[in-house]
């Protein structure tokens, strides 16, 4: 079966010599809910940028459903939706236009776009805020706009880089439910998050990256079964000592 995402020996060295990713390889099966964990600066966002086209890989190969993301980048982009960690939008544009323009970039016709944008605004509870400028929205609403924008092309592979950072508990729960529905419908989801509870709840497979390399990869159950659960497994994999974290009430 062709993997939804295949990254082989990815290297990314920035212009000033900083190594972002160093020989990173991973595979995500179609329909998987894949957690991509790591400390800040480990190479998570760099990997996502290389997959989605925001950064050029220095070397290595990236394929999305078997399509080379560098050689046939237009075909590969068509399959991907990205909700990035940082807000990369025109702050003076309104929520509806932001989602609609993205649909236009993906070549969706005006009639189809209207329906799709209406549905997404409804889904993310943005109808009342559709005509507000992005800069006037709260942090949670901004995050919802990013998610709606990522979904406008109905991507086969949805990449979510810290999608719940800065959102309230209610939205987080709503979003989890929505992502689970999408995944149940067959959508492949690639998620990075610092909330281990979120990853434990949603993901089936996990890869941990540190220093630009994958340091551990496997089914979630393997991590959860370990003493101390996912958090302890994560800290061990990234080189931190789980013991130095004080237990609640200690």
């Amino acid at each position, binding site marked *: 079966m062709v993997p939804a995402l295949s990254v082989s020996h990815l290297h990314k060295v920035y212009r000033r010599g900083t190594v972002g990713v160093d020989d990173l390889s991973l595979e995500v099966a179609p329909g998987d809910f894949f957690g991509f964990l790591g400390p800040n600066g480990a190479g998570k966002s760099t990997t996502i940028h290389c997959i989605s086209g925001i*950064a*050029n890989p220095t070397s290595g190969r990236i394929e999305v459903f078997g399509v080379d993301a560098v050689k046939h980048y*237009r075909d*590969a982009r068509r399959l991907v939706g990205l909700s990035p960690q940082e807000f990369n939008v025109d702050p003076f*544009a309104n929520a509806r*236009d932001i989602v609609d*323009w993205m649909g236009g970039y993906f*070549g969706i016709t005006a009639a189809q776009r209207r329906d799709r944008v209406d549905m997404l605004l409804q889904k993310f509870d943005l109808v009342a805020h559709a005509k507000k400028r992005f800069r006037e929205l709260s942090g949670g609403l901004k995050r919802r706009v990013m998610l709606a924008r990522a979904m406008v092309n109905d991507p086969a592979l949805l990449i979510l880089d810290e999608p719940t950072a800065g959102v309230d508990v209610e939205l987080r729960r709503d979003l989890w439910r929505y992502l689970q529905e999408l995944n149940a419908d067959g959508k492949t989801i690639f998620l990075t998050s610092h909330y281990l509870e979120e990853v434990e709840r949603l993901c089936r497979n996990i890869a941990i990256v540190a220093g630009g390399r994958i340091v551990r990869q496997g089914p979630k159950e393997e991590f959860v079964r370990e003493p101390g659960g996912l958090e302890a497994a994560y800290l061990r994999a990234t080189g931190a000592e789980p013991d130095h974290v004080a237990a609640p009430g200690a």
Partner: protein
Amino acid sequence: MSAKSPLINWIGLATIIRREWSRLMRVPIQAFLAPWISALLFIFIFGFVVGSRISHIGGHRYLEFVLPGILMMNIVNAAFLQSSSQVYFSRFLRYIEEALVAPLSYAEMIAGIIAIVILRAVVTALGILIIAACFGATSIDAIPEFVFWIIIVSMVFGLLGIVIGLWANNFEQLTILNVFLITPLSFVGGVFNTLSMLPPWLRWLAWGNPFFYFINGIRHAMIGYSEAPQGLGIAVALALGVVMSLAVWRLYAIGYGLRE
């Protein structure tokens, strides 16, 4: 799973234009009113007040002589400011990433920017022609030639603006080319004077100044007055257009200023 992209993403291309036009409409004073007022002042002072005391040039009133140059200066400015600010601000605020993650080819991204550059230049030019008509100075002898010069010059300076927009890392750098190259070269390129009015040593320099050919070309299209062979001017403009197009396409292909 059907992932094949069409040969040309027409809807994507139209969206780039539609989106940038919407951004432009947020700043109509800066985009259109400012160049129209500036042109009005130039036409009034240099063409009408000062010009009435200057003898005819090649059988044309001074106002008719300077109008093509004033028009060209504003087209150049509109084209350069449009593309440089469009690219720079989309990089600065990072919304250029929306285009980078979409199935748009480099050629489509560049074509989208150039289309809006030409649109802005045409609207600016139309406004100036209307203002000039109020002073009884609008005449266009050869419409196809006139359209050619507006399009090719907007394209060349739109492409130059893209390069600067990709290169600039702050607002200061964004204005460098305009201050040190575009404005001086356009002023010595024959906006207000003929070649023969220049001191002899500067005349030869004018032949190496592309603005001279642009201004001369549009002046020929408007009033039929020319100081250089039209073929040479057209060749210079087309060569610049081709070189700049290839350079910008290459910058997009390697991700210069776009992809980290």
